[in-house]
């Protein structure tokens, strides 16, 4: 069979942090090639490179070779790659909100009047709206969807948007290669099945398909070949017949030998914080009607694939996004999600994006550390106007610098000059100024070198053990959670899917992340009923 796409030794790094390392894969005509991997395994980077996303060029391009239909691919933008016959189904949808379904499906390929075609050329020719809509609704019917194509995208449900996104590519007659990024993530099983059948039909017609999904059973069901990514590298490849959900899940998570940092212990189940039907409207990381209890004095891990809501919990408590539902902290209901009042009550949240939310880059180290204590609890100042008592403040800061081994030239150094690990230490030091009883930490070790990682994890354990601070860590670094946590909650689609323990087997984590209940999975057709903990209304 003809190779449509061949990628040889592809590497890409963002600011020195490698995202893809020497990846080689190929897609043949009439084949569905599946790609499986956890967060940060490089799947999206691969998609972005092939689709010509400007992000890649802005961050310094890539190394390696991509051969598309026999010639080397060198595109500057998405427009060129589309012209070459490559279609792309984006996870976040490339749909224009203010245009109708019909307009979106035919965007850039509108049917035009023949008369004006000849007069002004196709680009400036009058659009035949009726014919466009007819074609669009025919395509949607083929996908089994019967909607008015005159409705604007902004008024559609996510489910329908996904179908429109796919219909746009299906409607193309010049399609040679189709890239699908998590096309079934938001669909119910029955809708997903419908879609998969259409894909299989299309590939039989000679189309090459690159299929990214974390629904392992779908991958097993439709793919001719599967490549598993982990940490930017290809870890295994399977052919049709060898593909097995359990093996995929195991490869995705990987087997790492590590020694536990935290002593295993049993924590008394006295709740300190209860979420009841808690929802957070954080775009891209939504939490929907979550129930979770955090016990006093424990370290709780939150994990899940990106987009499933693990980051939103802390931000929701600080009132950064609109919330709904009930939260009970130490027996009292929190009536308003307001950062100031909740900090006063003893909750503190350290953000995942330190550069954007965690520091004042132009301020000094000392000013960063004392900021919250100064502003919320009026520490470090003596008079009503709030001029800082620098002697006391520096005393405190120097103590923190020594305790946490923050590497800096002096407390007056500008904080943006510090490295990632030291920034995280500054953030933690700032949290401790307000003496929180409950500390939320998101992605504490992202972008930090190994040595500093260990220190930060140790710091968190120390704080927990010595001060009795309850800590909730939200991260996709599973092995770290296993080392420090007492319990680990896996989130799927904005809800707690399963609560596991550090000694639970890797396989169980892999399956839980993918939203699969057990290891003995039989395949897609029998599974019309839903796994426990994933109520129906989500899948409608």
């Amino acid at each position, binding site marked *: 069979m003809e190779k449509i796409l061949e990628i040889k030794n592809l590497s890409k790094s963002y600011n020195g942090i490698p995202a893809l390392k020497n990846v080689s894969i190929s897609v043949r005509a009439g084949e569905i090639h599946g790609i499986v991997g956890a967060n940060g395994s490089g799947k999206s980077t691969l998609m972005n490179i092939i689709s010509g996303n400007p992000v890649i060029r802005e961050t310094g391009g890539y190394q390696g070779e991509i051969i598309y239909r026999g010639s080397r691919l060198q595109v500057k933008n998405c427009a060129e790659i589309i012209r070459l016959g490559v279609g792309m189904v984006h996870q976040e949808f490339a749909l224009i909100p203010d245009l109708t379904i019909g307009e979106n499906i035919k965007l850039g390929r509108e049917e035009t009047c023949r008369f004006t075609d000849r007069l002004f050329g196709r680009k400036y020719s009058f659009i035949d709206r009726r014919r466009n809509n007819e074609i669009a609704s025919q395509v949607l019917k083929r996908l089994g969807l019967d909607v008015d194509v005159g409705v604007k995208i902004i008024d559609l449900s996510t489910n329908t948007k996904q179908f429109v996104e796919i219909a746009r590519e299906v409607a193309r007659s010049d399609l040679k290669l189709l890239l699908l990024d998590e096309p079934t993530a938001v669909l119910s099983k029955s809708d997903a099945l419908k879609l998969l059948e259409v894909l299989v039909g299309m590939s039989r017609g000679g189309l090459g398909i690159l299929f990214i999904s974390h629904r392992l059973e779908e991958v097993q069901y439709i793919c001719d070949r599967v490549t598993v990514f982990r940490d930017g590298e290809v870890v295994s490849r399977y052919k049709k017949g060898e593909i097995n959900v359990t093996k995929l899940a195991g490869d995705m998570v990987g087997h790492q030998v590590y020694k536990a940092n935290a002593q295993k212990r049993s924590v008394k189940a006295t709740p300190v914080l209860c979420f009841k039907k808690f929802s957070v409207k954080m775009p891209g990381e939504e939490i929907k009607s979550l129930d979770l209890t955090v016990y006093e004095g424990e370290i709780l891990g939150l994990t899940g694939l990106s987009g499933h809501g693990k980051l939103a919990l802390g931000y929701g408590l600080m009132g950064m996004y609109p919330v709904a539902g009930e939260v009970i902290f130490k027996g009292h209901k929190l009536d308003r999600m307001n*950062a*100031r009042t909740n900090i006063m009550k003893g909750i503190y949240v350290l953000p995942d994006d330190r550069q*954007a*939310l965690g*520091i004042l880059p132009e301020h000094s180290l000392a000013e960063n550390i004392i900021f919250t204590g*100064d*502003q919320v609890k009026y520490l470090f100042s003596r008079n009503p106007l*709030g001029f800082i008592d620098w002697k006391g403040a520096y005393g405190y800061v120097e103590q923190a610098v020594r305790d946490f081994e923050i590497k800096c030239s002096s407390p007056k150094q500008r904080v943006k000059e510090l490295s990632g690990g030291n920034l995280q230490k500054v953030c933690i030091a700032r949290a401790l100024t307000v003496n929180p009883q409950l500390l939320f930490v998101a992605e504490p070790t992202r972008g930090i070198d190994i040595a500093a990682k260990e220190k930060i994890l140790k710091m968190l354990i120390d704080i927990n053990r010595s001060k009795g601070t309850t800590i909730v860590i939200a991260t996709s670094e599973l092995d770290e959670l296993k080392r420090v946590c007492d319990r680990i909650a896996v989130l799927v689609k904005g809800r707690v899917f399963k609560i596991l323990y550090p000694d639970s087997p890797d396989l169980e984590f892999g399956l839980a992340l993918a939203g699969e209940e057990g290891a003995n999975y039989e395949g897609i057709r029998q599974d019309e009923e839903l796994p426990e903990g994933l109520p129906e209304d989500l899948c409608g």
Partner: protein
Amino acid sequence: MREYVRMRNYLKDYLRIYAGNYRIKPPQIIILIFLLTLLILARVLEMDLVILFNESLVKLVMNGVLVLSLLPMLNAGAGMNFGMPVGITGGLVALCISVNFRLTGFTGFFMSLLLSLVVCGLFGWVYGLLLNRVKGREEIAGTFIGFSIIPLMNYFWTLAPFQNRQMLYPIGGQGLRPKISLDPYFSKVLDNFCLLKIGGFDIPLGLFAFYALICLFLYLFFRTRIGRATLAVGENEAFARLSGIDIAKIRLIAIALSTMLAGIGICVYAQSYGFIQLYDEPLSMAFPAISAVLIGGSTGRRAWIFEAVLGTYLLQTIYLLTVPLANEILIPELTEILRTFITYSIILYALLYRNRRGIVH
């Protein structure tokens, strides 16, 4: 000995943060070259540089307070205050009331300042509420709020029941004159207060003291708890929100403060100039002030007192030098054209440069 090393390290850091931080950028280089050329030309044309220097000192303070008034808003992340006419008209109301009651000398001047604070506080509060609705686009909204308040205040100038005949149109017309002389009241009270004469040089010590007072006030403001919160909001709003700061309140305070300072600024300007200028006059005053702070080295996202002072002095000196030079080459309109050209190209440069650095707004 260890103490000494520590002190030395502190001092080094201090210098690096507050002085090493200051870098000369392309616009300042161009402005400096331009200024030098003008100075050489002035020398060649045998103009009296001492008189020019004396005048430049007065011009610095005359416009300086207006420039300083930009700082609270700029540092709170509410952008360059293109809506400065709001504060200026507030100050003009205060001046008119003082003149109406024929208050003279320092009584008149300080009464104007006091009234300015009241009127501009009110104006600034409303203006702040409006700008809080348009977060991220304060500049364009501010421009048009500033434009709209001018005709609105024209009603006030025309219809308000002022009594002092020296303020009203002499015959026929209704309402206040466009240009009211302050000569009988408090023209140049600050300029002439403690005027030090050394040889040909006139150093207006009183004027400087007042200017220094305003600078000191701002310096201290940014060191209070609210001032620190203001800087934090301007630098990283999301961080500030996560740290429990009421963003809307802080911005409101900063905008009101900017407006009040603009009111004070126009009082200082008027006493130096000797006239109150009403009607459409405040319309274009925001632009030179903004370009001054940019020339001083501000990036258009935050600005320090030093940058405001330096920028005002450079820009006003250039303005001052262009007048006699344009007259010399027989195209007097050239002064005004060059002024606007400099002003707007600096602002445009800053707008482009600021966004290119990709700071998310």
